[in-house]
């Protein structure tokens, strides 16, 4: 028996619909889940995880310390020997944000904190990434 040949329905626009659906879903996901903000350059610093206070973006001096103890002050890599002098020369040095690597040891952190403490810095914040519970 000869089967009746089915007519293929070719409709370009109908075939696009699943693609359009997925794109719409992706668009909605990125619009809702993402936050539009400037990507932070972290200078090889892998921040520790802790959720303590909400991060408030503000223009303050930021010190990045990697796991080896190398220091970047306000986007400029500096030698640790001149760190104290650089801090001394800064204007408006009331607040500092420290972005320290999660593998940085306490003795290396201590050296930086000691310099800040000697300069009578009033507020020091530690930057972390939020824990994913």
């Amino acid at each position, binding site marked *: 028996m000869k089967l009746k040949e089915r007519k293929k329905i070719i409709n370009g*626009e109908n075939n*696009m619909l699943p*693609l*359009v659906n997925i*794109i*719409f879903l*992706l*668009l909605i996901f*990125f*619009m809702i*889940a*993402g*936050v*539009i*903000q*400037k*990507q*932070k350059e972290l200078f090889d610093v892998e*921040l*520790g*995880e*802790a*959720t*303590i*206070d*909400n*991060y*408030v973006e503000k223009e303050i001096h930021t010190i990045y310390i990697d796991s080896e103890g190398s220091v970047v002050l306000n986007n400029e890599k500096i030698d640790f020997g001149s760190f104290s002098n650089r801090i001394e020369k800064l204007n408006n040095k009331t607040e500092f*944000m420290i972005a*320290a*690597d*999660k*593998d*940085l*040891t*306490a*003795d290396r*952190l*201590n050296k930086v*904190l*000691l310099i*800040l*403490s000697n300069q009578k810095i009033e*507020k*020091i*914040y*530690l*930057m*972390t*990434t*939020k824990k994913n519970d």
Partner: protein
Amino acid sequence: MKKINLTPIIDVVFILLIFFMLATNFQDFSQTDIELSSESSQSISSDKKMYVISVDKDKNYKLNDNKIHVNDIKAKVLTSIRSKEEHMVILKPDDNVNMQIILSVMEDFNNSKISNMLLGIKDNSDDDEKPYDPTSRKTKAEFGKILGKPVQ
């Protein structure tokens, strides 16, 4: 019936999608403000009750140089907080303790409503020259405990 041409809307949606993919940032930061407690500061010789918490890299805790479970430390500090007793809580991590452990200890205490923790910093440079201060209310033994060595 005339069909609507979908191509322009797909173009626009694609452009929006690419924009949001590039502009959005999923990295979520948190922060904590830290107060420093230097061994050379005046506050160390004050009348306040001191809780000097040491922690090593295996998260073994010591309170004023005595081994103790973390829950017991929290209970003691919380008792001081509830009775409105003047006190200081100082976290002194060992030298080889990494940042993640320090943060998790601070977070742990913060979650237990102990938010007034100071981070102890060691002034290694003048440890050797620091004389025992006889006007301090601390005894030589107490001062020695803070310095981590006997006081002459």
